[in-house]
């Protein structure tokens, strides 16, 4: 639609004198006018904005929950260590050799060697059974390698554990990852659900905006006819509706963001308190700057797109007769 418009401007007698407003200025004017129209009838607009906002809130809330849970899971990475118990006859130097070897693997982040003596000391310190250990003539505890996998979820599926088990000098491998595994599976599902929900609700937003714009077009049918009669292009007629759609989307995004922030504010305190009871320093995080920006830009685009679809469908049908 832009090519003929430019051509037309060239043809018109005023532009020859350079008296035409730039497209940009015209856009600014239309944008301001559309905003003013919305401001004058806030009742209907607020209804639409609330519906859009709630539709956007659901996937956002789900996203934030998943995000927090997975970060919480990551935070508890300490719990997802793998303990490799060595056979009694493995010496310190041999153990260190094994640990060097393991460190070259990409799926391992860190390896800490706990010698049999250290293990005994630690056990004595934490259990308070130091006397019992001292009474024994030989140390019953084996040396161990404590391994931190680089990624909890992949280490489960990878051959890491079986590799460790087949290493020479290894007695047994112990990992308590079942809950991490379940959490990961659940989060994967939730992530997929939030993506799907986002898609469905984005379509809902398109329809809500589209329908609102359809009504606006219907209400202004007479005006559209007159504008077309005196030479308004489809693009010119469409422009205020597109701006209106974008405003609806943006306002819906702000509405969703505000609701989400309020919910996080209400839940954040108690949740952090609860986590502290479990010994975690984790605190609930919201959408963040990037997420917020994405929400607002996305919702604005959705509003614009909904209006565009509606305009495409309904505007060309209105011709002066």
């Amino acid at each position, binding site marked *: 639609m832009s090519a003929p418009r430019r051509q037309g401007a060239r043809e018109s007698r005023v532009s020859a004198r350079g008296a*035409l*407003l730039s497209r940009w200025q015209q856009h600014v004017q239309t944008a301001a006018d559309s905003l003013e129209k919305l401001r004058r009838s806030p009742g209907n607009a607020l209804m639409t904005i609330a519906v859009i906002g709630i539709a956007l809130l659901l996937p956002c809330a789900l996203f934030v929950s998943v995000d927090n849970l997975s970060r919480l899971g990551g935070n508890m990475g300490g719990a997802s260590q793998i303990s490799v118990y060595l056979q009694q006859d493995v010496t310190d130097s041999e153990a260190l050799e094994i640990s060097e070897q393991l460190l070259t693997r990409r799926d391992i982040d860190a390896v800490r060697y706990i010698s049999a003596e250290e293990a005994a000391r630690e056990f004595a310190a934490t259990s308070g059974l130091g006397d019992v250990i001292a009474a024994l003539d030989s140390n019953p505890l084996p040396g161990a390698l404590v391994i931190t996998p680089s990624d909890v979820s992949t280490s489960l599926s990878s051959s890491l554990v079986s590799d460790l088990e087949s290493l020479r000098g290894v007695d047994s491998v112990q990992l308590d990852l079942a809950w991490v595994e379940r959490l990961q599976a659940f989060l994967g599902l939730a992530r997929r659900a939030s993506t799907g929900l986002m898609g469905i609700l984005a379509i809902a937003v398109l329809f809500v905006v589209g329908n609102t714009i359809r009504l606006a077009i219907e209400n202004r049918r007479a*005006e559209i006819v*007159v504008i077309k009669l005196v030479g308004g292009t489809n693009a*010119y007629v469409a422009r205020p509706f597109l701006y209106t759609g974008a405003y609806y989307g943006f306002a819906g995004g702000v509405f969703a963001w505000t609701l989400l922030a309020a919910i996080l504010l209400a839940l954040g305190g108690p949740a952090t308190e609860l986590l502290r009871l479990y010994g975690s320093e984790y605190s609930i995080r919201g959408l963040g700057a990037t997420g917020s920006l994405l929400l607002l830009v996305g919702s604005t685009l959705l509003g614009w797109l909904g209006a565009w679809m509606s305009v495409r469908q309904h505007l060309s049908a209105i011709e002066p007769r």
Partner: protein
Amino acid sequence: MIKFDNVSKRYPGGHQALDQVNFELNAGEMAFLTGRSGAGKSTLLKLIMLMEKASQGQIFVNGKNLGRMPADRIPFYRRRIGVVFQDHQLLFDRNVFENVALPLQIEGYPRHEADRRVRAALDKVGLLKKEKMMPITLSGGEQQRIGIARAVVNRPQILLADEPTGNLDPELAAEIMQLFEQFNQVGVSLLIASHDLSLITRLRHRVLTLDKGRLIRDADSGVPGAAGQEH
């Protein structure tokens, strides 16, 4: 400037509104289009505005064949033609000033330039003092004059008017006709549909007479007796 070549118009209902109409309006010419109600005057003007398409024949405006004009060119074509509509076609949620400013706004005139032109046009139709009023609060004649001001505000080369004096008293009607003649003197081509035979005959211009969609008379000037040609 405007040329009708064997133009017929049949509405979807089957009514033959125009039947093989031929005429040519030269640049700078002023002509009246007359005929009884239902003769097809508005239809002829609508064809020129591309509000309707001819069923047969060809219409040329400025040498351009309207039948071949792509849809996206129509707005730019319309901007060069001023039209006074029989039913005014005003925007009732905008005041007089904004109504007249609409064509300039669409073309993107800067505010001060538009304001100047709108006031000049309103002054010509005697509505300068009512620029802030809403059209609905004005009389039929005043609404008609808003339409006239809007039609001339961007100084078109062609001016079409459908019963522009229909709601005006004789004095005001004569004034508006004078205004049209002024435009004609600066080179604007005019085609004015009107019932008002007494007014038409007084002004000596070309008269095209339609009857049941056919052009039955094309008189070089409004000679007395033109009315007699009508049934």
